[in-house]
């Protein structure tokens, strides 16, 4: 038996696909920014903060890195409302992704910032910089420069992982594929096309992040 693939059956649903694509891009962009911000603050607090805070952040990082994103998402979407915090699907997806990327980027950025020699920090202090200026110009900038490729890889992993937000009915690319195949019964074609869309997104994200990295943190 030979099955003929029918990609044309997807065409009527191009708008559903486009909406899903935009949703996934928007969700990735927003939670990347929030997640990297969390990671930056987390890395600073873990390196320079008080012991108890560093310990707490260490537990956060390990807890997130050693549990599946799907369970984290369910915990946020189903668990938090039970504890009194009502969330929409989109909010839950955003929060779960931010928490997830926040943990990974805390660890990644910390690895970069801890490598700052003590003497270089002292040089900044001696030049009358404030603690914040030292942190920003002397510690974080070179740290980001060093770990940018690792951070970019992690962002792509989180973007691909975001496909499970369809499981709480957030209307992303995967949700679009589910929707389309439930209408036209072309399951394989739908998932194949959406998989290619993710691949395109991954390639684009990598290129954009690389360009952004060489703009923001020019290499020595």
């Amino acid at each position, binding site marked *: 038996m030979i099955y003929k693939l029918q990609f044309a059956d997807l065409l009527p649903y191009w708008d559903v696909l486009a909406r899903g694509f935009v949703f996934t891009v928007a969700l990735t962009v927003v939670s990347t920014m929030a997640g990297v911000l969390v990671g930056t603050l987390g890395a600073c607090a873990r390196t320079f903060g008080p012991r108890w805070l560093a310990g707490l952040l260490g537990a956060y990082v390990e807890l997130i890195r050693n549990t599946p994103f799907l369970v984290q998402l369910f915990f946020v979407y189903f668990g938090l409302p039970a504890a009194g915090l009502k969330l929409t699907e989109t909010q839950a997806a955003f929060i779960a992704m931010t928490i997830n990327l926040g943990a990974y980027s805390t660890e990644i950025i910390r690895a970069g910032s801890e490598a700052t020699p003590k003497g270089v920090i002292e040089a900044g202090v001696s030049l*009358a910089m404030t603690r914040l200026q030292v942190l920003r110009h002397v510690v974080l900038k070179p740290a980001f420069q060093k770990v940018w490729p690792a951070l970019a890889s992690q962002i792509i992993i989180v973007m691909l992982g975001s496909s499970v937000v369809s499981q709480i009915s957030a209307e992303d690319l995967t949700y679009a594929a589910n929707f389309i195949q439930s209408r036209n019964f072309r399951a394989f074609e739908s998932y194949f096309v959406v998989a290619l869309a993710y691949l395109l997104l991954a390639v684009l994200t990598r290129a954009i992040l690389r360009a952004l990295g060489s703009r923001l943190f020019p290499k020595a």
Partner: protein
Amino acid sequence: MPLVSIVDVRKSFGANEVLKGVSLPVEKGDVVAIIGRSGSGKSTLLRCVNGLETHDAGSIMVDGLEVGGAKTDMRALRRHVGMVFQQFNLFPHLTALGNVTLAPRVVEKMGEGRARELGLEMLAKVGLAEKRDAYPSQLSGGQQQRVAIARALAMRPKALLCDEITSALDPELVNEVLRVVEKLAGEDMTLILVTHEMRFARDVGTKLVFMHQGRVHEQGAPKALFAAPQTAELQQFIGASFK
């Protein structure tokens, strides 16, 4: 009133008292060379002057500001006191020019153009204008240290602290750095140097301080002191150093 006055300063690390009451006045334009064995407390003393270490007792005044004083803005103080380190401590992610202009830009809020102008002037002063776009990893140790000096000078300090700035250098690179310091001394810059370069201390210094076991053991005019040390310890130290 001296530009820097150090009075009866004490400092301990745990049970180990490294400064046991050090007093030292430094006048404007002085070139003070502090010598002594490792562990005699000379680097710690220098680091106390701009507050990288906090002293336990006594007082340090710089240009009318008390180091570590409750009312003192330490950043204001550090703007007047430059520091050059043994290990250069350049910012590895910035070019030579970037290293020199960072503090003027973020601390002094200087515009990009003016900071660049100032930075190039300072690099020219240490003879490295053509290396402006080189990163620290592309420079020799001597060149890195000269950039570090330019970086400190860009803040227009009233005094410059030099903490064994030639100790990490290969012997053939020492002189290019010392020549820069000598030039600064000639321009009336106030310098406090912790150094192992005895000839330099003797020839360029206006004042020699010999530290021993956490105290100023002997001080005076360099040439006189080298010619006729008063104590056995200094005599021994000079003998060992010039061998």
